[in-house]
């Protein structure tokens, strides 16, 4: 399937005992120390004044890392914006591996270690491309596209997160981008997932 314009994955916090503000110096250090492989990190944006929104952004050229509180559900949102690959499969692999790397970096960060934990047994995946992946509720091509994307994601993610992993389309507003929820009760840990994606240590 065609590469979406943007693709995002959000992993949710199981524990979070620091304020959003604590991520600002961490992200600045990540930029300075160039900790993310294959990505150019640019700046940190502070939106913590917005209620239940993207509180702190680590803005990059290829991707953004967001400490995101949308819908009151704190998580680490990874938004892939550039160099997604040749098709949806490539885009998903790239996005997942970089997002999981972000999870690992966050959990192991010297200033954050022990103060937070992200879970891998679920995630939200968004195809930010209303042209090629419309989120229409009506019958027609758009529904077929959404169903095809759902099947594609299901196959890919089950192979990675375990055979009991399920992907379900979120019944959200048609103006929102096409969104899927991953549930993976027996998901392996981050290192294993990264290893399976071929990007682990």
């Amino acid at each position, binding site marked *: 399937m065609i590469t979406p314009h943007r693709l995002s994955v959000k992993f949710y916090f199981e524990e979070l005992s620091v304020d959003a503000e604590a991520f600002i110096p961490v992200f600045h250090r990540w930029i300075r120390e160039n900790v993310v492989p294959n990505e*150019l990190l640019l700046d940190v944006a*502070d*939106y913590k004044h*917005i209620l239940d929104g993207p509180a702190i952004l680590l803005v990059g050229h290829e991707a953004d890392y967001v400490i995101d509180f949308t819908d009151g559900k704190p998580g680490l949102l990874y938004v892939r914006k*550039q160099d997604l690959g040749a098709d949806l499969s490539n885009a998903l692999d790239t996005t997942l591996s970089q997002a999981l790397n972000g999870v690992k970096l966050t959990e192991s960060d010297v200033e954050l270690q022990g103060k937070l934990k992200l879970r891998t047994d679920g995630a939200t995946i968004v195809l930010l491309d209303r042209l090629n992946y419309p989120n229409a509720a009506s019958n027609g091509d758009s529904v077929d596209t959404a169903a095809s994307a759902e099947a594609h994601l299901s196959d890919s993610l089950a192979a990675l997160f375990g055979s009991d992993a399920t992907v379900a389309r979120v019944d959200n507003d048609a103006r*929102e981008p096409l969104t899927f929820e991953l549930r993976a009760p027996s998901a392996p840990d981050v290192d294993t997932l990264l290893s399976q994606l071929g990007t682990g240590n």
Partner: protein
Amino acid sequence: MSNIGWKDVLTDDMPVDLAHEIDIFEGQMELMGQGKLDEKVFAETRLRRGVYGQRYDNGQRHDGFESRELEFEELDRIKGPDTLWHAPGMQRIKVPGGGLSPEQLDVLAQVADEYSDGILHITTRQDIQLHFVHIEDTPDMMRRLAAVGITTREACGNSVRNVTCCHLSGVCRTEVFDATPYSEAFAQFLLGHDDVQDFGRKFKPAFSGCESEACGLVMMHDIGYLAQVKEVDGKLKRGFKVFVGGGLGTVPHQAKVLSEFTSEEEMLPLVQAVARVFARLGEKRNRNRARIKFLVAKLGIDEFRRLVEEERKTLPHDDRWTAYLDTLPQYEEKPAKPPTFLNGQVRSTEFNQWFETNVYSQRQEGYSVVTVNLPLGDLTSKQTWELADVARKYVGDNVRATVEQNIVLRWVSDSDLPSLYEDLKAIGLGDPGAGTIVDITACPGTDTCKLGIASSRGLAGELRTRLTAKSASLPDAIKDLKIKISGCFNSCGQHHVSDIGFFGNSRRSGNFKMPHFQVVLGGRWRDNAGSYGLAVGAVPSKTVPEVVDIITNRYIDERAKGETFQDWIGRIGKKEARGMIQPFMQLPAFEQEPDYFSDWGDPRVFSLGDIGIGECAGEVVSLFSMEISPAESEAFEAQIALDENDPARADALAYSSMLKAARALVRTQFLDVGDSPDRIVEEFKTRFFDTELFFDQYAKGKFGQYLLDRHQNPNPNPDNDSAHRLIEEALLFIEATHACESKVGGNVLVEI
């Protein structure tokens, strides 16, 4: 599926002319990519499509320790001078009069999450800005906006910018008449007009329905229209009092009256004549003197008016001048619901607090305007389409952005107010305090602006948090004060017209720079930005919350009954005002207060570029620091002289303060310069001006020219206006002297 783009999908939805313009822009992008367009030409081209630069787009970023190169791909590919193609930028979206429909909000939300960081930012001129946008995404973004009637054309660049209009027009209790349809006709007439394509700088128009309120801010615009009705031949005629040559920026100018009454038939030909005069006689080479305010000041308003009147006579007739008048009778806003009343409904305390500050009772009985108080002017994509649904439910198309970075919902049927409040609260947009001291305006500053010196948004966020926490206990006397913050002297945060304003600058302490804010007191928001405040001194950024407390507490304690903040500042005088902040002007060393050397929300050690090294730390200050201090004092004395209605003395002191600052700078290289003004100016010119060491990266030699001009052409009869201007210039010259010394690095130290 893969070969179909937005261009194909939206062909039937876009106005043909807009679609064509976007195709042309896309073509120009391709030519630029092939190296077939001059970089400056392309830069102006994209600016006129609202595609703006953003901080770090030169590929350099200071990480708190050193400047580092941002390794974008294709580093040799640019989209303008010193601007890398792949660096993300800002997209400004024009919203005439701030008017938005729910359908437009939906699309704005969608392009924000697909092409930017998912945040929509309302500007102080009713525009919407998206940040971190890649240039390749802009044509499709423009197409999606065009499909719902929005253009980004001439949102930036040397053109007619967004036409602003009071957000209460049409429902205001004090207006003469609704200026909205006139502002719309004006915007439509000038968009892409041949006579507005050759300006040396931007041109900002504003419309207001009444004189005493602030909403239209006509006095601070390049051209401003104030609704008037005049009896002509026994009939009441609509028209406007027209102002020209106002502006904030580095040196603020109050607009002058171009015409006491211009009839509605003459509104468009008059501005066309003004545009022609501005294009023909306005400065083109020196962009720092190119706004129309400089032309008006140079010619004088009488000569400018004469030229405009002569130009008007030569204009070939255009049917569009009056065609819009035929549409006026049909212009009306349709409320979504019939009028109702709030009587008898149970109100929560929370609702009452919100009602008190965020609800304006319309002139039309049974309806209100609700202000959605946006923190720092921001809302998310998700909030935007949720707000669109709220608008559909309660007010339909009656939504406008405001110059205080909020959104208003007009024509709310009064009995809906409690449920509307609950709906806004549910989407995180139910904050009370609209238009009060907690509702702080701030430009983007160092967050994203290339010109930002200090973090205006960081400071605004901090002040908002602190003031909101104690808002319930704030005395009524200060609840409605305006705080406005700019990240630099360019005034995008409109600090000149607030009660308490701030603009970012920096000072050096030892080997480090410290973010500062100049404190500007006593500006007047009311009366359409009726008067401008003056700077009383610079304080470290981290002390600003305490400075606000000190100033507001003193006002609470000392104000006479009914005395406004401006009147109080006027009564105590600027010397006393400066005395309030004086204790905060002593700069600690880095070792004493390291936190002072980083900005709000940004832990990096503060820098304007490279951090100075090599000077002795500890109990030493440079000779320059010792000698610049009297210059600052003298500039301050000049302000007091102006307060005392002594423009000649004010003029002399302002000039003397510039000479002192120049001398301090010269003496970092040449100790024996002496005291002769001619010699000081000569040495300053030779060593710092001609060598461009004194030049600001963006303002170039503008600030140095202030001294050269005043030295060469003293004003024999200074009046209050000219003295005021010279004081502003002296303050900027002194700021530039600090910046130059920081850049060059003083090398003469004196122990104290």
